[in-house]
């Protein structure tokens, strides 16, 4: 694949050199800055000044102005020229002798210093001496198999080293101490300092002209077998794959990243980066190709030309224009070290982005994504390809010059819907990834809005995820788009995110009412209720309270009952809510239940209200009791439970209400609340004839009270049972049951008094046994307690005896254990361990806990 890397321009026309003298040929050239030197076969050296001009088209032209020319005084051709600008000297090889001439006037130096006996020579471009006013020159000597190293100064030369080679050398290049030599049958690396040599590879220098070209630090380019350009380091290793030249290559030069070779007919350009041939320029009869500090000069025997490299950027752009992404990137990467870092990064990023768009246009999304990412593409460049995605308010304009050739996606896909869809899918995934990174600072709005539009357009569920999490979708733009795509639910979410809950709710209510259509959520009503439940705006809740309650009282009331507790307490006035709920009895009941049962509000009004509502409901349900028995039963159970557990409602009011309704159990409970256990039990036994309920009544009514209270209740019940007389068989059974099962709740002696004499012991056996057992148990327990108390008393008495038993001698020699003073009075305190202290010391010990303790007083 070809690329235009160089253009060939003429530098020195034939007329300028030799006019019409045909015999005169160019033998060698040297270029140093603006100075161009040409050596001819008639022993002249020409000096030209090169002037570079850039044409508006971008290509450069050169004009050479001749400064002077000088004959060197030999009859031999000038075979080689090298400038040593630091010394202001030109080294001229002519007739096997290197002379030094002044670079400016071409005059030989007065001292006449020269190197004799040189076949060819090379300058050390990586000098080892470190002296800036000295050039290191290596020559192949006329002596067989000999290399000599010289130091060349301004006006003298000095031989440094002579080394002999195993075979006759033909060409040489130098780098530091390393000589790269083409010998008769092979190339070698020779360290002239140590004398160590390293074979590279065989090459027959007599058959084909060898090429030895230093291309950089410690690396050489060599002509190899089969027209190969081989790379070799001073270590004898090849680090780059060879380039493939023609068999008859004459010369080679380097102009990074290209290797340029010359043969009879062509100049060929290979890339060192991928070893591919990049360009071929027809050039006949060339015989010199050299590079001088990056400038590549070719010459025929009659004219001098310059190969002007096209700016790398231009080359890269050309490659990109022909969609050769890989090559462009390789070239760009290769150029890294030739371009200042800052500039390179900008350039390289742009190339990556361009390459990304090329891949994108070919729907190579994976590659494109990687390129966009590494090129740090402003995502808006990509978004702007998709019509209408960027918000109208976006300040974005595409970079100039453009990164790609496409106006929009329609042009890119040429209307192919499938491709369009693929592109959209890619953008969605790409934007989604970009969102997660820190990259898009400053244009999050553009990204999120674009993403929202894509999601809406392609019916993605991610739309909702986007809207319920943190996002930067622009309201006006997004709203219009969502409306257009009938995503009303999502639109509501958008409004909500933008603190426009009223608008959101209005939309959703309209959807639920069927005014507008959006089937995103089938449970939208529940969603709205939930939304209102957590909505902090009270006005909104009030506004839609009626609406939600009309839809469903049970669900709608959650707006009030399920609110977070802390918020509820300080915002919604319960009385307002109750007032509002008056029209919705079921909701009201739920709400009061919530207040009384869940929140345990101790307010009489709520309890009474709830009880009354329950009662009402029970009464309502009773006439048609057959149909909804279960429901009636649950309501009744709720009523009872409330009446039992709550102590706050107005009992009298309820008793009034309940009178004559036949709700015996309830009225029994109510009487119980008034401590009218007699009445309550009476109702239970006589009205309701529910004996187990009566027994339960005794149990729960006395819960938390003392034993006598419970006993009183049980006796009350027993009395009621017995007062009916022995004729009532049912009651007799109940009595016996009660006694037998709750023997411990009674005072057996009293009971026996009450019982009719006719009852057999057999009948009451369990009761009697229980009572006996209880009585005996009590007696024994009392005896145990008595015994324990007695023995405790004995222990204390024993202690007392012991303490009193011995006499205490108090003399004036005894000291108080606390103050260490003698006792002056016969009054003292004695501790159980025998210690004696003053009474006042003992007293102060108790007030002053820090004083030393003589032991505990018993």
């Amino acid at each position: 694949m070809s690329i235009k890397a160089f253009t060939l321009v003429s530098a020195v026309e034939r007329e300028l050199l030799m006019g019409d003298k045909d015999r005169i040929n160019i033998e060698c050239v040297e270029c140093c800055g603006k100075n161009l030197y040409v050596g001819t076969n008639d022993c002249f050296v020409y000096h030209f000044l090169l002037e570079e001009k850039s044409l508006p088209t971008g290509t450069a032209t050169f004009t050479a102005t001749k400064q002077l020319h000088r004959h060197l005084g030999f009859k031999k051709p000038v075979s080689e020229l090298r400038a040593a600008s630091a010394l202001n000297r030109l080294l001229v090889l002519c007739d096997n002798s290197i002379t030094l001439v002044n670079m400016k006037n071409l005059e030989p130096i007065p001292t006449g210093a020269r190197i004799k006996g040189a076949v060819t020579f090379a300058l050390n471009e990586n000098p080892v001496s470190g002296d800036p006013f000295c050039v290191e020159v290596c020559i192949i000597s006329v002596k067989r198999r000999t290399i000599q190293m010289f130091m060349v100064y301004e006006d003298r030369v000095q031989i440094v080293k002579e080394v002999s080679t195993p075979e006759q050398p033909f060409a040489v290049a130098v780098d530091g101490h390393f000589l790269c030599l083409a010998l008769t049958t092979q190339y070698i690396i020779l360290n002239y300092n140590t004398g160590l040599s390293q074979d590279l590879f065989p090459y027959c220098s007599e058959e084909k002209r060898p090429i030895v070209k230093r291309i950089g630090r410690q690396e050489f380019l060599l002509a190899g077998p089969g027209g190969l350009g081989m790379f070799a380091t001073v270590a004898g290793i090849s680090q780059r794959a060879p380039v493939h030249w023609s068999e008859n290559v004459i010369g080679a030069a380097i102009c990074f990243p290209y290797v340029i070779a010359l043969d009879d007919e062509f100049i060929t350009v290979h890339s060192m980066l991928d070893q591919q041939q990049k360009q071929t320029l027809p050039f006949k009869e060339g015989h010199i190709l050299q590079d001088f500090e990056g400038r590549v000069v070719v010459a025929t025997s009659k004219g001098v030309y310059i190969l002007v490299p096209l700016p790398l950027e231009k080359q890269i752009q050309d490659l990109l224009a022909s969609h050769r992404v890989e090559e462009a990137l390789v070239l760009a990467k290769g150029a890294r070290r030739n371009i200042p870092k800052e500039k390179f990064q900008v350039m390289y990023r742009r190339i990556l982005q361009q390459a990304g768009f090329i891949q994108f246009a070919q729907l190579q999304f994976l590659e494109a994504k990687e390129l966009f990412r590494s090129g740090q593409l402003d995502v808006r460049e990509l978004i702007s390809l998709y019509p209408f995605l960027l918000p109208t308010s976006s300040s974005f304009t595409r970079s100039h010059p453009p990164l790609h050739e496409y106006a929009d996606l329609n042009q890119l896909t040429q209307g192919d819907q499938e491709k369009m869809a693929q592109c959209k899918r890619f953008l969605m995934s790409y934007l989604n990834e970009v969102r997660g990174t820190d990259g898009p600072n400053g244009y999050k709005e553009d990204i999120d809005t674009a993403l929202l539009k894509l999601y809406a357009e392609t019916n993605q569920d991610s739309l909702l995820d986007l809207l319920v999490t943190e996002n930067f979708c622009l309201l006006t733009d997004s709203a219009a788009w969502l409306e257009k795509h009938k995503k009303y639910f999502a639109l509501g979410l958008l409004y909500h995110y933008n603190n426009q809950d009223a608008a959101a709710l209005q939309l959703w209510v309209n959807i639920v009412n069927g005014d507008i259509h959006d089937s995103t959520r089938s449970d939208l009503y529940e969603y709205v209720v939930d939304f209102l439940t957590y909505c902090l705006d009270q006005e909104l809740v009030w506004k839609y309270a009626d609406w939600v309650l009309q839809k469903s009282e049970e669900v709608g009331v959650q707006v009030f009952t399920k609110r977070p507790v802390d918020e509820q307490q300080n915002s919604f006035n319960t009385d307002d809510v109750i007032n509002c709920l008056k029209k919705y009895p079921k909701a009201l009941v739920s709400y009061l239940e919530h207040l009384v049962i869940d929140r345990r509000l101790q307010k009489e009004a709520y309890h009474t209200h709830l009880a009354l509502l329950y009662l009402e409901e029970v009464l309502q349900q009773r006439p048609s009791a057959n149909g909804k028995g279960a429901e009636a039963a649950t309501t009744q159970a709720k009523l009872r439970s409330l009446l039992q557990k709550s102590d706050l409602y107005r009992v009298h009011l309820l008793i009034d209400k309940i009178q004559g309704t036949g709700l015996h159990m309830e009225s029994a409970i109510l009487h119980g609340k008034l401590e009218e256990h007699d009445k309550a039990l009476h109702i239970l036994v006589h009205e309701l004839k529910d004996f187990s309920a009566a027994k339960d009544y005794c149990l729960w009514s006395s819960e938390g009270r003392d034993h006598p209270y419970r006993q009183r209740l049980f006796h009350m019940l027993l009395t009621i049972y017995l007062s009916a007389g022995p004729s009532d068989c049912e009651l007799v059974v109940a009595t016996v049951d009660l006694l037998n099962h709750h023997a411990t709740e009674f005072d057996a002696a009293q009971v026996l008094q009450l019982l009719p004499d006719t009852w057999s012991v057999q009948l009451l056996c369990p009761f009697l046994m229980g009572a006996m057992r209880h009585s005996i148990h009590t007696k024994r327990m009392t005896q145990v307690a008595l015994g324990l108390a007695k023995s405790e008393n004995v222990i204390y008495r024993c202690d007392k005896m012991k303490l009193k038993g011995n006499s205490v001698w108090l003399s004036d020699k005894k000291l108080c254990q606390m103050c260490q003073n003698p006792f002056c009075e016969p009054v003292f305190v004695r501790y159980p361990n025998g210690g004696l202290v003053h009474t006042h010391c003992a007293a102060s010990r108790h007030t002053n806990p820090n004083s030393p303790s003589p032991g505990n007083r018993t």
Partner: protein
Amino acid sequence: MKKPDVKIVLLGDMNVGKTSLLHRYMERRFQDTVSTVGGAFYLKQWRSYNISIWDTAGREQFHGLGSMYCRGAAAIILTYDVNHLQSLLELEDRFLGLTDTASTDCLFAIVGNKVDLSEDQEKDEVSSEQASSSCVSTKVPKQVKLEDAVALYKKILKYKMLDEKDVPAAEKMCFETSAKTGYNVDHLFETLFDMVVPVILRQRAEGPPQTVDISDYKQPKQAKSGCCA
């Protein structure tokens, strides 16, 4: 350009499939290749290491370059064609000498490529005569058996004066592959990569190779002595 940590070189007669093997491994596919000119190399990222793999030209013309390519190599893959006995013999005659420049602890792998063109080994042993006489199948019996490669491997060890105990066993280092089907190709390269990783670590521990020696400090002394003498 990333600096390779270690070098592996493919050697072998022309047309045994060196380029195809490498291509199969790097590009995951098989395609017809043209005769390699000079050489080519790939850089393979293996874990955190860069491994350069050199593909050499098998043609006689480029034979002289082999030594240079092998210089300092950590592993050399000697490749032959299982259907051409000569290609195995060439390894010993022509290519073994090239490996003299490789590093002293260089690993050798012997790879018989193009097994897809021959019959299975077991079949081969049982009915080799039948197959050759009937000529029904386009597949031919394998000319080179794995044992031959193993024998060559042992010869190489002798040539290098290595003890069998110090190097990987022959069975581990002789492979039969097919670049066309991909058979055993990954196994070959990855086995070798795993084996050269310790070499890389050793190199790193030893510091930069001693061959590159600018000798900046010796020169002034020399210059002085030259001056005084």
